[in-house]
């Protein structure tokens, strides 16, 4: 439990520093939850980022091609994300992975609606990978 607390706390601290220094907002909770769940499931970690990417690309396509925006894009991105995760969830009988895919969709919407999309997408991915790596190391050490 302490390792989860330590990772969450350090990521919150990192998030606050990023906010104060670079006005980066809300990049912590979703990727950290995803990363902690993914620690014993390497394929899920890949799928989590894959769903984020697909959801982001298709959301941007909906916006740029059809000018669909706001909550319509948001719900579309959530749906795209869980649908992208569905084959993995079925194959591995991992029910929770399907639910957690909504977080990838939420990350995709936050990226879509952010001021600087490349920066936000990179930070989401970086926070996910960093949490994943730190959690691995902490578990290995303990």
């Amino acid at each position, binding site marked *: 439990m302490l390792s989860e607390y330590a990772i969450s706390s350090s990521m919150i601290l990192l998030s606050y520093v990023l906010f104060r220094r670079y*006005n980066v907002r809300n990049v912590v909770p979703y990727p950290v939850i995803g990363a902690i769940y993914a620690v014993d499931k390497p394929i899920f970690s890949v799928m989590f980022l894959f769903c984020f990417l697909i959801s982001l690309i298709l959301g941007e396509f909906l*916006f740029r091609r059809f*000018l669909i*925006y*706001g909550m319509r894009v948001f719900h579309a991105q959530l749906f795209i994300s869980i649908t992208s995760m569905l084959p993995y969830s079925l194959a591995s009988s991992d029910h929770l992975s399907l639910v957690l895919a909504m977080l990838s969709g939420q990350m995709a919407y936050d990226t879509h609606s952010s*001021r*600087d999309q490349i920066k936000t997408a990179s930070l989401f991915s970086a926070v996910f990978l960093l949490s994943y790596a730190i959690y691995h190391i902490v578990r290995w050490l303990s």
Partner: protein
Amino acid sequence: MRISISGTRGKTTTVRMLHQALVRRGLRVVSKTTGDEALLWVGEGVFKINRPKSVLDENFEVIKIPHDIAIIENQAITPYTMKVFHRIIEPEVIAVTNVRLDHTEFLGESKIEIAKSIASSFNESVEFVINGEERSDIEGIIRGRAERIGANYIRARNYGIPCSESIGIIEEVLKLMNDTLSEEERTGLIEEIERGLSVRKKGELLWYDGSKVNDPESAEILINYFLRKYKREFVVSANFRKDRRDRTSLFARFLRDLSKKDFIVKIFVSGFGAKSVARYVGENCIYVDECSDSAQKIIEFSEREGAILMLLANRKTKLVDIILEKLNDK
């Protein structure tokens, strides 16, 4: 031609003045303002837009109305809504009136961040960016973004009175159309702004409804302007809303500094979070309930002190409604 009027303060004034100037030149002009009292101008006609709240979709309909020039206000609430707005209307010209601390929760907690949020909404369809903001570091952000998207950057003139950047923007739009603002028109616009910046009188009381002045910097500019113009002390009534906590927080800091000035007689605060604001500001600040007795007390106190009663912070509050009703009552 489509023109987006962006920025923090003075957008509606700019839309209205620019619309009138272009209609006078015989052009088919369609304009729209936003906010709670959104208006649609089609040539000489003005129509109130009735809807529960501001929606971006209505801009699709506005640009369908036949026009030579469409002037549409871009409500500066989030970087995303500003960006979507520009995607919808695809303006050739974006005019930024100024950059002030408002909607900080979403746009950023400093003027630099707010300027970045506004600039990030400029898209590739833009050919000209006209800027009315004077601060050089903010100008750098707006100019930098304009250059990155290949737009021409134009600095609008300011005539030294609050809100006069609107006139500078009108001049620059007319120049783009190979036209100029006549001396008579310019004088008329300056006089119109000055009329809007004049205190009103009820009996012996002088008062000004600055309740739509929603950011501390604009409030400070206005108070300094009145101080020079009328050389009187002020009683401030600042009223807060539950849904605008960012504004309450910004005004609390501003009012604390303001309360130490010798030209401030008293500050009355009301609404959500006002008790905390009163404690934070200090002894020169009094919390009042949002009721008729409080309104009467504030009015009578201001009259007795011979000070200008200045309403600030938020328009849509119960106490402002009551005070305005009493002050407008003939």
